[in-house]
């Protein structure tokens, strides 16, 4: 039981929080810009490399370094939005989807050119876990990841429900023509969406880098589970994406627990397939997701 808690449940929650943050960005851009942004994973990677750079070269602690890293990433994403996505704003969704796929490849190649393909470590060494009741072990970084993820999700909720721009984002996602007819300037809403989703991506990149390491495929490998999370929660629905992230993270980790006998339920090598299975089942059984989102 303790083993289940320490090695399956807690890591599941941690991974779930990272998925949730990343899926939120996918869900927001889908709701407002109306395309599935394949470049979101590599936005995480870019953010993580900026963080690593500030940590390695300037000596900032990671918890500070993510701020200038997020600013830089946001500037790059906003510039690329103007270059690649703005001319296609009225184009069919599939054109934007392919454009984001191309942008994803460009982004990753640029990262590999600039930083190389070697793995980098953000926090060297092994952290001693906190031990509760002689049994429950929680690594401090896991505690902070989950805590910060909760703070960010509450913060996003407040932005979406309490601020004028947040309400305008929800209005645009709900009915873009009526939003224009209300005088909402679409481009400002689009900029706000990129800023928020990129910030969430950089923080997700930070957490993933802290939990594992920094490498050029880290964000790309996240794409499948975060799309699965966004679809599970109903794409375009931020609260669904949060729940979806947690469910996918837990499902992945718990699927390798030895529920029956001594062997893992499924081999850890197939862990990634769990997210895929959830996504396929959802698309067949309930394409609008649990949160009644938009259908592709």
């Amino acid at each position: 039981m303790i083993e289940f808690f320490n090695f399956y449940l807690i890591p599941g929650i941690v991974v779930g929080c990272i998925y949730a943050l990343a899926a939120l960005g996918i869900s927001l851009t889908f709701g407002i810009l109306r395309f599935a942004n394949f470049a979101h994973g590599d936005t995480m990677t870019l953010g993580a490399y900026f963080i690593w750079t500030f940590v390695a070269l300037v000596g900032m602690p990671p918890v500070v370094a993510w701020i200038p890293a997020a600013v830089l990433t946001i500037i790059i994403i906003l510039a690329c939005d103007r270059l690649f996505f703005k001319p296609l704003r009225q184009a069919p969704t599939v054109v934007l989807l392919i454009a984001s796929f191309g942008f994803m490849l460009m982004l990753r190649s640029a990262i590999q050119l600039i930083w190389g393909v070697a793995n980098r470590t953000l926090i060297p060494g092994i952290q001693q876990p906190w031990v509760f009741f002689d049994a429950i072990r929680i690594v401090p970084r896991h505690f902070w990841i989950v805590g910060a993820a909760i703070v960010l999700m509450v913060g996003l909720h407040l932005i979406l429900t309490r601020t004028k721009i947040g309400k305008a984002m929800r209005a645009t996602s709900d009915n873009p023509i009526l939003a224009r007819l209300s005088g909402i300037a679409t481009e400002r809403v689009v900029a706000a969406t990129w800023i928020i989703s990129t910030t969430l991506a950089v923080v997700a990149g930070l957490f993933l880098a802290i939990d594992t390491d920094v490498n050029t495929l880290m964000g790309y490998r996240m794409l499948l589970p975060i799309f699965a999370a966004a679809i599970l929660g109903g794409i375009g629905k931020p609260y669904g994406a949060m729940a979806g992230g947690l469910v996918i993270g837990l499902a992945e980790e718990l699927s390798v627990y030895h529920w029956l006998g001594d062997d893992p339920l499924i081999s850890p090598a197939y862990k990634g397939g769990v997210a895929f299975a959830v996504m396929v089942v959802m698309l067949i059984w309930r394409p609008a997701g649990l949160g009644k989102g938009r259908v592709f």
Partner: protein
Amino acid sequence: MSLLTIETLSGGYGATDILHGVHLRLGAKEVVVIIGPNGAGKSTLMKAVFGLIDIRAGTIHLGKQDITGMATSRVVSRGISYVPQNQNVFATLTVEENLEMGAYLEKDPIGERLARIYELFPDLAEKRRAEAGTLSGGQRQMVAMGKALMSNPQVLLLDEPTAGLSPKYQDQTFAIVRRIHDNGTPILMVEQNAKQALAIADRAYVLVDGKNFADGSAREIRENRDIAKSFLAGAA
């Protein structure tokens, strides 16, 4: 002096023209109703004012200002409010959030405006925290109109405000249109319930196949037998 002037307007969606040289004017303090069969281009004409269709020829003026083909948000900021026929509320936003979005361009606090709308539509005050998508058709129409009024518009455009409503809500809607007009807001509306609409209108235009078929005072249009027979079903 007319507030909204449309002259020889042609346009539509892509290569297909729906409007062919339409003219219309709305005077300050007037209620003008557009009637005509389905597909006559009534809604398209309203969309043209907001830059939502492709305009090929003609002009639209607000007062002396040329607003032909101007970006939607700029037209809105000039003081024209529009209630589309369908999907005219943000279904996933609360009633109050819908009203707030109506005053999106307003920089100052909007508490007073909200209070005024709740006074005009008391039903909405109780439902202010409900999602607009959960309301009945009549209440949703009230949200849509209240939202449009939140910007204190100079001109209000209503596209079939009573479509799909029960008779009770239809009467209520016409009463509200009357009240909005009594407050001095000029109104241009497209309406299927031509008889009731003509009863509260000053003037009317009949549109057929994207062209002006007839226009005149509401009384003239109501008493014109040809029009009554062709377009005012059940109006006799």
